[in-house]
C-alpha cells in the first residue's frame, strides 16, 4: 500500500513538474519576444545612439523627448525603477555584446546603489530572468547568485518565485501583445502619478552630505573606454542632500542640490512631474558642452 501511495505521489508530481517546465520554456520564448521590459528593448529593438541608464530617479525624472529636442539627438531612456548600478552595468555589457553601444551614455548614479547588498536580488532584477538560459552575457554576469541554477535550468521556477511580477504580466501579454511595463515605447520614460508630492514635515528631514564611492563605476569606465563611448555620470536631486564623490571623475554632472524647495519633490529622492522639465533643462545645459 505504502509503495502504491509513494508511487502515485511521485508520478503525479513528476508529471506536474515536467508539464510546468514545458510551460515555463514556452513562457520564456513568449516573454523574450515581447517588448514588455527594458531588457527586451535591448535585445529586440534598434536603439538610439544616445542612452540614459539609471534607476527610478532617471526613469521618472528626465523628459527624454525634451532632452532629444534640446540636444538635437535621439535619446532612449533605459532606466528602470528599483534597480542599482550593477543592473545598469549588466545592461551596458549586453549592449556591448550585441554591438549596440551608444555614442553618448548618461548614467544616473546615487546612494541608492550603495545601501543594498549586491549579492541579493534588487526589486526589478527578475526582468532579466527570461533571458538567463538563452544569453551567455546574462548568465555570466547575472549578479544575484541566490537560486541561480534553479532559475537557469528550471524554466518554470522564475514564474513561480516571481509570479506577481513575471507570470501576471506574461499572461497580460497574451491579451495585449504590445504591453510595456512602466515605460513609454518611444523614449522609455515613465511618469509617477500627479499627486506625487513630498508631504513630510520639513523639519523632520535632516540636511546631509553623502560621499559616493562605488567600484561598479570603474567597470563602466572600462567598457566605455574600450568601446569609445562618451560616458557621463550624473547625480539627480535629493531633498536637503548634497552628494560628493570620493574621487574626481571625468564628465561628472552633480545636480544633487539643484532644487531646494519641497514642492519640487515627490519624495526625498524623487523629483515630481512638475519639476521634471526644469530638471531636464538643467541637465541639457550641463550635458551640451560634453556631448559627442
Amino acid at each position, binding site marked *: *500500500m*505504502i509503495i502504491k*501511495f509513494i508511487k502515485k505521489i511521485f508520478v*503525479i508530481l513528476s508529471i*506536474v513538474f515536467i508539464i*510546468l517546465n514545458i510551460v515555463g520554456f514556452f513562457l520564456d520564448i513568449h516573454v523574450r519576444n515581447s517588448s514588455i521590459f527594458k531588457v527586451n528593448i535591448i535585445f529586440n529593438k534598434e536603439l538610439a545612439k544616445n542612452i540614459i541608464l539609471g534607476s527610478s530617479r532617471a526613469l521618472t525624472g528626465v523628459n527624454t523627448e525634451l532632452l532629444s529636442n534640446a540636444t538635437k539627438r535621439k535619446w532612449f531612456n533605459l532606466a528602470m525603477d528599483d534597480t542599482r548600478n550593477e543592473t545598469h552595468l549588466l545592461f551596458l555589457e549586453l549592449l556591448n555584446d550585441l554591438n549596440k553601444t551608444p555614442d553618448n551614455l548618461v548614467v544616473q548614479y546615487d546612494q541608492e546603489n550603495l545601501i543594498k547588498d549586491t549579492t541579493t536580488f534588487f526589486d526589478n532584477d527578475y526582468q532579466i530572468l527570461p533571458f538567463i538560459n538563452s544569453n551567455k552575457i546574462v548568465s555570466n554576469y547575472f549578479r544575484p547568485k541566490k537560486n541561480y541554477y534553479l532559475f537557469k535550468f528550471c524554466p518554470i521556477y522564475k*514564474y*513561480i518565485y516571481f509570479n*506577481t511580477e513575471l*507570470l501576471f504580466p506574461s499572461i497580460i501579454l497574451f491579451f495585449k501583445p504590445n504591453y510595456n511595463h512602466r515605460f513609454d515605447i518611444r523614449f522609455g520614460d515613465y511618469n509617477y502619478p500627479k499627486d506625487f508630492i513630498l508631504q513630510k514635515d520639513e523639519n523632520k528631514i535632516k540636511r546631509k552630505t553623502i560621499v559616493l564611492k562605488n567600484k561598479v563605476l570603474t567597470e563602466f569606465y572600462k567598457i566605455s573606454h574600450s568601446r569609445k563611448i562618451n560616458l557621463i555620470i550624473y547625480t539627480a536631486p535629493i531633498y536637503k542632500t548634497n552628494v560628493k564623490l570620493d574621487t574626481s571623475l571625468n564628465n561628472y554632472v552633480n545636480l544633487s542640490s539643484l532644487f531646494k524647495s519641497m514642492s519640487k519633490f515627490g519624495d526625498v529622492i524623487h523629483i515630481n512631474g512638475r519639476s521634471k522639465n526644469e530638471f531636464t533643462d538643467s541637465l541639457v545645459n550641463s550635458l551640451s558642452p560634453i556631448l559627442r
Partner: protein
Amino acid sequence: MGLLIASTLLDYVYGFWVASPNPKKAKTFLWLSVLNNLGILAIFKYYNFFALQLQQGFETLGIQTHPVILSIVLPIGISFYTFHGMSYVFDIYRGQQKPVKNFIDYAVFVSFFPLLVAGPIERANHLLPQVQRSRFFNYNQAVEGCRLILWGFFKKIVIADNLSQLVDPVFQNYKEHSGLSLIITAISFSIQIYCDFSGYSDIAIGVAKLFGFELIVNFKFPYFSRSIPEFWKRWHISLSSWFRDYLYFPLGGSRVNLAITIRNTFIIFLVSGFWHGANWTFIAWGLIHALFFIPSLLIKNKNKTETNSDLFLGNSITPNWKEFFQIVFTFFIVTIAWIFFRSNTILDAFKFIELCLSNLTKITHLKTNIHYAILLKAIIGVIVMFYYEMIYFKPKRKLSITKMIILLLMVIFMGSFRNSVQFIYFQF
C-alpha cells in the same frame, strides 16, 4: 532543546507520582507539576515582561530600579509542549489516563513534530493511546493527509502570505493611511491570521495522518459564527477546550451563580490572552472577547439553546437574514479584537480604530500594480477558500485528484514565495 527534554522528563516522572493512591500526595505532586510547568513559562516567556512592568511601576512612584533582563530567545513551541505536559498530569490525576511506562512513547506525545511548534494542543487521553498502539499504513488516511497538507499550504501561502504583504506595512505606519485603508487592512488581518493559523493546523493534522495519527480538529469555519461563544467553539478549539476542561470547569464553570460564572469567563479570557504572549495587547484582546461573551451568558441563563458548531449554519448552506447580521456583527467584534492583537501597543490599537473613522473615500495602501495583483491573488484565494470549505468539507465529499492538482497549481502560481513569512503562531 535542553528545556524540552527537561520539561518532558519532569512531567514523565510527575505522572507516576500524581498516580499515587494517596490523594494528598497526588495533589501535592499535581501542584508541583503545575508550578514546574508554569515556572518554565514564567521564566522563559514572561519574566522580562514582568520585570519591565515592575520597573515602570516603580518609576511612576519616583523609584529608579535596574531589573535584570534576560537576553534569551523564546524557546520555540514552549507554550504548546508545556500544555501537553500539563494535560498529561491532569488526566492522570483525574483518573482518565494511566502513567505511561515507556518514556519514548511519552516523549513522542509531548514532542510529536507536526504539533510541537504551533499545535493543535493535544490531550494525553487522545494522542497517547494512538502512540502506544501499533499503526499500519492506511492508504485512504494518507490521501486525506495529503489533501489537508495541500489545503493548509493554499491557505498559508496563497492567502495569508499575500495578505501579510499588504497588512504589515500598514500596521507599521498606520498613521499615514486613510480610514478606508485601515478598515480593509483590519479585515485583511482577520483573514490572514485565520488562514495562517488554520493553515498550519491543517498541515500538522495532514502530516500526522501520513503517520497514522488522528489529531484534534482545531478550526471549524470560525468566521461563520453567530456569536462570540460560538466563535470560541470554532476557533483554536484545542486551546479553548484545554482551558475549558482544565481551568474553567475546576473553577466551577457555568454551574455556579452568574457572578462567579462571569468571573470565571474573565479569568479564562485573560489567561488565554496572556498565553499568546507577554504584552498588554494580548490581554486587551482577551478582555474584548470576555466582554462580548457575557451577554450570551445572561441570555443563555434564561434560554438554554445550544449552537451546534459541527454544522455549518445549521443544516442550510446559506444563512438567513438574522444569521447573516449575527455573523457580520460577530466578525466585526472579532476584527476589532484582532486590531489589539496585531498592534504594538494598546494606544496604537485605539489610535488605529480612531483613524478608521476618518477619510473613508481614499485607499492609500494600494499604490502600485503589484499591490493590486497581490490583492487579486488573495481575493481569488479567499473565494476558493469559502467555496472549498463550504462545499468540500461537508461529510463524505472528497476532492478528486484533478481538483487537488488544480489546487496545487494555484499554490504554485499564486503563492507568495518571494515574500514568505513565518507562521504567526510560531512566536507563541
